[in-house]
């Protein structure tokens, strides 16, 4: 959903069972033939209720996706975090230029002189440098490339 602007809509209401489901599933689904039944049992829900609630959470936009979380580097791809210092008057033009690259994900405006932060995910590690050069050419701005050197594992990604 490129170019998506986040609206100021009301937050979704989650009840206690929804919260337990979201928190439990952030830790991952067991790799067994009937994974939903296994998780439902842990949460003292029926399998049908768990599936119904998951469907509703996906449809309501609380969850954007359910399934495998990939490790792009191990799939042979490149991944990095990059930042730009964008002059205020030029912000909209630079957003459009940067978001036009299919390799760009998670583009956020942040409070700092480096005010645009985005993730680059490419098919090969070498492509990262090429895309950065292309973004610099398209925007006329220097890209700060801040590749990951080590990941420290958190257990629960976003407790709700």
């Amino acid at each position, binding site marked *: 959903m*490129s*170019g998506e602007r986040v609206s100021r809509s009301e937050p979704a209401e989650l009840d206690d069972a929804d919260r337990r489901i979201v928190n439990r599933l952030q830790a991952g689904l067991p790799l067994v033939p009937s994974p939903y039944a296994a998780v439902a049992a842990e949460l003292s829900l029926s399998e049908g209720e768990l599936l119904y609630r998951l469907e509703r959470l996906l449809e309501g936009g609380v969850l954007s996706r359910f*399934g495998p979380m990939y490790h792009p580097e191990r*799939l042979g791809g490149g991944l990095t975090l990059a930042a730009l210092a964008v002059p205020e008057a030029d912000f909209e033009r630079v957003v459009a230029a940067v978001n036009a690259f*299919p390799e760009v994900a998670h583009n956020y405006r942040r*409070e700092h002189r480096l005010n645009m932060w985005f993730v680059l995910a490419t098919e090969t590690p070498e492509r990262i440098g090429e895309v950065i050069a292309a973004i610099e050419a398209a925007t006329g701005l220097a890209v700060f490339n801040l590749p990951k050197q080590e990941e420290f594992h*958190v257990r*629960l990604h976003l407790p709700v």
Partner: protein
Amino acid sequence: MSLPAALPTIPGPAGPQRLRALLERGLPLTERPWQALAEQCGMSEGEVLAWVECWQREGLIKRLGLVVRHHALGIRANAMVVWDLPDESVAEMGRRLAAEPAVTLCYRRRRQPPEWPYNLFCMIHGSRRERVLAALDEIVGRHGLQGIPRRVLFSLKAYKQCGGRYTHEEQP
């Protein structure tokens, strides 16, 4: 959600390739999701489970989980907190910060001095800025980080939240 672009070509039988492509769209919400996928790629349920287990073991798939849309839950404040830690202590502090419940992601990243001297990044989410800053204060106190240079970069707006070829976690 749009379908992802083609997966990279990897050597191997067609079944596993098709399975990878199907998994990109997410796991079916049905009692026997692996069986449903198996039928679509000409494999047995056992073979599908064995392939996914292999990909998890090799680290291609981190886990079978879900992506929460923060904003839909009223989690409006998202702070990227960056620290300039001595190289000899950054790994230890990274592990300690990752264990903090308020920290949702934690990475060591390359410095870009002089403009960007920070080498440890963590994300803290919350309903409001004050909550995020209060959580940060506690973390600073608990780990004796008062003297460590840091910056808090709140997000002002999301211009793109999906994209890229794979589903991966938000990166800071």
